[in-house]
């Protein structure tokens, strides 16, 4: 059962000329709460809005209220013209193509090779401006009919991002879902020229570093690998992030060896370590079955190579559950 949530990227008007690939944006919004499994969500295509030129920093849930955070006053509404938009978009893509070709000569990802090789700590996502918020998509269980709300905006002094909202685990009465109540913030897959999918290569790092300030709730961090193969769209590696609460910033370091594998929302018996060479997106999920408001402030997300961490994979396969692996 392929779970496909079609989401339009907010920053382009009318994408007639450029069709995203089929496996383009199947974002899973969330999985389980604490230990193993959650109910499988039915495939729902969120009705895509024809997004206007200003980007929606809030969730892509169809309420106008979320986008109401950024709606400019009527006098400032930009002139929307079809031809101009198409031309802009074509120019943008050719500019990206030129950047890619030029960057190929400078080094991987446009930075010189020695810098990449010697790098031991890299900031992957930072939240210093509105354009950084555009790289993230926020979803909640409204897509299956639940009542949680979640919003994303810049925090104090434009120095952090604040993800806040209300969680409600009232199950939608549609006969299919018995549990509900999740919110997720997922990063968009990085795109190259002509909307080709790119992926992150973190093979020289071994720990994920987050600087967050939460309210004591347990979150789940999910990493999805490159989604060109259709089966991989439902697979992800996850681990828990426990926030402390309090006014102090908290540094969360999660080694990549601790991420466990799950497919279609259920943790699998055959575990394998997370391979870091083609990572496409990361996401944070809150589904701890406690109703009420929540917030999470994120300063930045980075990866670094912890020299003290030598573990390769934290979970061994058991012969009881997986007799075929031990033949």
């Amino acid at each position, binding site marked *: 059962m392929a779970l496909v949530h079609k989401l339009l990227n907010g920053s382009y008007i009318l994408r007639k000329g450029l069709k995203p690939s089929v496996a383009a944006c199947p974002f899973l919004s969330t999985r389980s709460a604490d230990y193993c499994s959650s109910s499988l969500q039915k495939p729902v295509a969120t009705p895509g809005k024809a997004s206007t030129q200003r980007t929606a920093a809030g969730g892509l849930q169809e309420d106008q209220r979320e986008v109401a955070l950024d709606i400019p006053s009527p006098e400032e509404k930009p002139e929307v013209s079809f031809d101009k938009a198409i031309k802009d978009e074509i120019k943008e893509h050719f500019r990206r193509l030129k950047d890619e070709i030029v960057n190929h000569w400078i080094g991987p990802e446009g930075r010189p090779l020695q810098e990449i090789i010697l790098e031991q700590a890299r900031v992957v996502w930072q939240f210093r401006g509105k354009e950084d918020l555009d790289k993230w998509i926020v979803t909640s269980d409204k897509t299956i009919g639940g009542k949680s709300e979640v919003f994303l905006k810049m925090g104090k002094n434009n120095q952090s991002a604040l993800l806040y909202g209300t969680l409600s685990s009232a199950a939608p009465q549609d006969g299919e879902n018995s549990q509900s109540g999740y919110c997720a913030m997922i990063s968009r897959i990085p795109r190259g020229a002509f909307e080709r999918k790119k992926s992150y290569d973190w093979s020289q790092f071994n720990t994920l570093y987050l600087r967050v300030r939460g309210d*004591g709730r347990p979150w789940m961090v999910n990493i999805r690998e490159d989604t060109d193969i259709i089966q991989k769209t439902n697979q992800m590696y996850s681990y828990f992030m426990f926030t*402390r609460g309090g006014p102090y910033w908290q540094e969360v370091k999660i080694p990549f060896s601790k991420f466990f594998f799950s497919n279609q929302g259920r943790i699998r018996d055959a575990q394998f370590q997370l391979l870091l060479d083609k990572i496409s997106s990361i996401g944070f999920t809150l589904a701890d079955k406690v109703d009420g408001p929540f917030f999470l402030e994120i300063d930045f997300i980075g990866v670094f190579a912890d020299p003290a961490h030598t573990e390769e994979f934290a979970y061994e396969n058991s012969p009881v559950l997986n007799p075929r692996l031990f033949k």
Partner: protein
Amino acid sequence: MRDYGVEKDLAVYNLLLDVFPKEVFRPRNVFQKIFVHYPRQQECGLAVLEQMENHGVMPNKETEFLLVQIFGRKSYPMLKFVRMKLWFSRFKNINPFPVPRDLPKDPVDLAVLGLRHIEPDLSARVTVYQTASSKDSTGTADPTQQHIVGIQSPDQQAALARHNPARPIFVEGPFSLWLRDRCVYYHILRADLVPPEEREVEEIPEEWNLYYPIQLDLKYGRGGWDDYEFDIDEVEEGPVFAMCMAGAHDQATLAKWIQGLQETNPALAQIPVIFRLTGSSGELLASSSGLEEPSPPPPQEQEEEEDHTQRQQQGQS
């Protein structure tokens, strides 16, 4: 099960599983083993186990024995039991900030637990300034006294003593903290960042101690080529001087907290304190030294940090 309050009770789940007839659903020959024998019943057993899992109840040997008796060793409920045993024990202690399962009922105890949870400094002292008076001889609806519990560490005390009285300090709040499934609110006393030109650099005289150096700049065993710093400016915020949890979020209760703090921090008497509370009427100036100061405009970013629903409930000025 939640209605009876027994959803976390393992004995109840075992009794529920006891309801199944014991030897009926076990597969007896190879054909029954190939096909899922009694699928609806297995699904029912799975549902019981899934509810156990959702509430975080760890099954025990009795559950295993019951499942073997009812469904057999190769059935789906048994498989789920093995998985639960494995993953629960793997994830039992991964929380670096564990919260006890049975939270105290007394609000003062809960506040103490919460404050100790968020304060990383272990030498911080918790002071109960006021306990909620539950005995109301006059019969009024709400108690006139709310509990106030504060926490302050010696470092914070020293920083407050060093604070320049010309700069005001702010009481911000309330911020929410979740302990398992209870939400408590806390306020903090903090000052704004000192701009770089006014920051004093402490100079330690060189010959203070002849036996060992005061400042040691060693990077133990790491080569000079190692660089684990992230290439980003850290978010700088003003220092936090104390935190408190109070029953009410209005200025009167917090003023009592400030008065209580003044006993241990005499320097606080000279410093103007501004209350930046969301949900109350914007900013109010309360200066303990009697200085007149115009209240600065309420900072928008401050209030937006709070929970949205709380704002909507309490109204915004």
